[in-house]
């Protein structure tokens, strides 16, 4: 079977948006693709040793607000919480994040660190963006060991010979 390849640019650093790049990369690797992930701007958060990702329902009308516990009629309720309240209540994002993590666990969805480990195990190449590290003053030791650091030209070199290139 001919060797195919895929690259993904991961630009987002929230818990929800961490999923698509790692799910697609781990799956592509399992299907025999050579995969390169390039992490830039907020996406660089996904390479931190200490993964502490949050999700914010504020200003995100597409995000269902459902409780991960209680009887099924209760779990089925979609709580329509006004933006003003979400912004005004301290710790709202923290609560939303822990509810989301609970839901993720309940549904048998892998954690981000688990998916990231599966990607690394499958030899997915991960490149951190040097410019973003300089911009946000991030130090190399904050990021996991099994990555390299590079720039746009490094990405283009991979993308130019790749079958699939995605920007997430």
């Amino acid at each position: 079977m001919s060797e195919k390849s895929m690259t993904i640019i991961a630009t987002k650093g929230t818990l929800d948006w961490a999923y698509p790049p790692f799910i697609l990369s781990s799956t592509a690797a399992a299907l025999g693709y050579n995969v390169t992930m390039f992490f830039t701007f907020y996406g660089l958060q996904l390479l931190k040793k200490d993964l502490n990702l949050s999700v914010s329902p504020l200003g995100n009308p597409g995000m269902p607000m459902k409780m991960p516990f209680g009887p099924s009629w209760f779990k089925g309720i979609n709580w329509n919480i006004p933006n003003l309240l979400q912004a005004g209540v301290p710790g709202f994002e923290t609560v939303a994040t822990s509810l989301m993590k609970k839901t993720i666990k309940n549904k048998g969805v892998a954690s981000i660190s688990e998916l990231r480990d599966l990607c690394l195990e499958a030899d997915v190449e991960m490149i951190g963006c040097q410019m973003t590290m300089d911009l946000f003053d991030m130090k190399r030791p904050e990021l996991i060991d099994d990555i390299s650091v590079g720039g746009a030209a490094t990405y283009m070199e991979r993308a130019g010979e790749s079958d699939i290139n995605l920007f997430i």
Partner: protein
Amino acid sequence: MSESDQELDARGLNCPLPILRAKKTLNGMTAGQTLKIIATDPGSVKDFQAFATQTGNELMDSSEANGEFHFLLKKGG
């Protein structure tokens, strides 16, 4: 469902974990051996078809019983 060389319990796991676990298990098997997978993720039905087509492993059987999905993969050469 026929006998298989190995079994993988992927019940309760969601996309893409059943596929990833199956791939990992297949890595430790030899060509021609069969792997039986039990999953509860309804998406895995289409996904295992796609997995088989793209990896050269043969999907010999795919069935559903009591909300569980059974797959039989034969490792390709």
